[in-house]
């Protein structure tokens, strides 16, 4: 960020007199605002898309009366939620009750910072990108647990406890399933990981096709991530038919809205990570976007990235509207008895592969065979 600030100061002589830290700070705020706007828009549009997709899957139409073809539905929902009465139950823990939605929202929003949207579009290319994502998304579990506890409602408490157990359990397979990508790129930075999948192999440069273990890894990641975002086969914390509405049962108005937005934010983060780590990120097949002018290269790569990520989100929605829900003991069993061991075995496999074949994937080897 500081480098960008220096170049900005150099480019605009008017800023020469301003202290560098001010420029940096202002830049940071501006970038944060852009990301927030993007995140909120995505989450709003996401909820609309979700309802449209749900409608399509369920032989319905979905929202189509609010604005042209229902496009403004999320705006109406948002404005209404903001203007709703904010109820804090009499026996709730007031401070924690108020705090919980922010934890959840911040946890999901902060992860947007390291998402590599394009060849040069990343708010902060942290060298510990993946690690950072795993860390901040863990905030969500604290928020959910707080919400469940502070509501002073037994359904909410059950939801919160379920969420805590579930997210903590599935954090491990999610992390383990992502490490193959880190190993191949040799870096924790998401931008590096994406770059490592470029080149002239096209889609076969993706980590997904690197070797059999990474291919498997992707599906492990996707399953575990579906659980971490509380999507349907694993939506126990808010199981509507069991726990009424789970941890957010006592939340109304915008506080509920924050939970709602965070849910879509989480979905996007998961899809973005899958895209970046396995599906080649913003890389355009058979084409080097870095060679284009800055603006066009970025726009193209942004488009590619968003297309892939949205496709992943759609698949998640599809799964969500198709499958029934697991029971809580089955959920735990699935994580600890199947996903965790499998991801470890998989990780071992990838490591051995990289050791034996000196970091080359199958497509790379085939390509080198043909020169």
């Amino acid at each position, binding site marked *: 960020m500081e480098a960008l600030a220096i170049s900005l100061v150099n480019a605009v002589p008017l800023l020469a007199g301003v202290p560098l830290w001010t420029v940096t700070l202002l830049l940071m705020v501006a970038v944060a605002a852009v990301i927030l706007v993007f995140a909120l828009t995505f989450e709003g549009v996401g909820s609309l898309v979700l309802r449209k997709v749900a409608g399509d899957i369920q032989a319905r*139409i979905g*929202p*189509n*009366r*609010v604005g042209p073809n229902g496009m403004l539905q999320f705006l109406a929902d948002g404005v*209404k939620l903001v203007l709703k009465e904010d109820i804090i139950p*009499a026996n709730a823990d007031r401070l924690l009750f108020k705090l919980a939605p922010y934890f959840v929202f911040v946890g999901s929003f902060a992860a947007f910072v390291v998402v590599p949207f394009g060849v040069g579009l990343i708010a902060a290319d942290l060298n510990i990108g993946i690690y950072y994502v795993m860390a901040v998304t863990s905030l969500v579990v604290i928020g959910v647990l707080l919400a469940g506890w502070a509501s002073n409602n037994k359904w909410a408490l059950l939801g919160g406890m379920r969420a805590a157990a579930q997210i903590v359990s599935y954090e491990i397979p999610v992390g383990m399933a992502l490490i193959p990508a880190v190993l191949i790129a040799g870096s924790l930075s998401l931008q590096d990981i994406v770059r490592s999948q470029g080149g002239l192999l096209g889609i076969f440069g993706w980590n997904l096709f690197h070797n059999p273990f990474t291919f498997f890894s992707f599906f492990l990641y996707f399953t575990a991530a579906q659980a971490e975002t509380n999507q349907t086969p694993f939506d126990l914390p808010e199981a509507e038919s069991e726990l009424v509405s789970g941890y957010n049962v006592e939340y109304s108005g915008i506080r*509920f809205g924050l939970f709602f937005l965070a849910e879509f934010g989480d979905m996007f983060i998961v899809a973005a990570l899958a895209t970046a780590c396995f599906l080649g990120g913003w890389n355009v097949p058979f084409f080097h976007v870095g060679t284009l002018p800055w603006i066009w290269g970025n726009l193209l790569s942004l488009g590619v990235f968003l297309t892939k990520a949205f496709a992943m989100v759609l698949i998640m929605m599809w799964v969500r509207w198709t499958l029934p829900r697991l029971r809580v003991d089955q959920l735990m069993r699935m994580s600890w008895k199947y996903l965790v061991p499998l991801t470890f075995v998989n990780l071992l496999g990838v490591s051995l592969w990289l050791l034996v074949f000196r970091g080359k994937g199958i497509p790379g080897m085939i390509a080198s065979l043909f020169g």
Partner: protein
Amino acid sequence: MSPDPAHGQPPGPGPPPAAPLAHGSAPSPGLGPEAHVMVGNADLFVNWSRKSSLWYLLFATACCGIELMQAGASRYDMDRFGAVFRATPRQSDLMLVAGTITHKMADRVKRLYDQMPEPKYVISMGSCANTGGPFYKDSYCVVKGVDLLIPVDVYIPGCPPRPEALIDGIMSLQKIIMRKKNFGAKA
């Protein structure tokens, strides 16, 4: 769940229904002559958002509940209007009282209504919720109309009302919402 004191006093047992009837002469949802243009537009915007996002509480007690479900399903699809069901009263804007209310159920109805955040609306769906319906004369344990318990905005007749009637009721409620004044002088 405890009743919420922040909401103000719960409605007493006495009948407080000064509910506007949905049907009848509806003034156009435009601006009053004295309304400030800014305020008027804000009102329009706020009311528009409220009417477009009527999340209803899944409160099906009897027969009408099935029609309510069918109205939310494929053929009628209330989601078109932005009306989706919520399981918890805290997140609902609209209480669709679908079915018979008995005396044993009565204080639950009141409590659920109290738990909903303002602004909240009530649609009384079907004869039972309107007046006690077929059980008016001979039953000893049916409340003769949900308006004895909570204020009702729209009454939908029928036993049970068809989904079309229910959608008409929701649209009537939308008209009522568009007439509300949120800013400036209390109307």
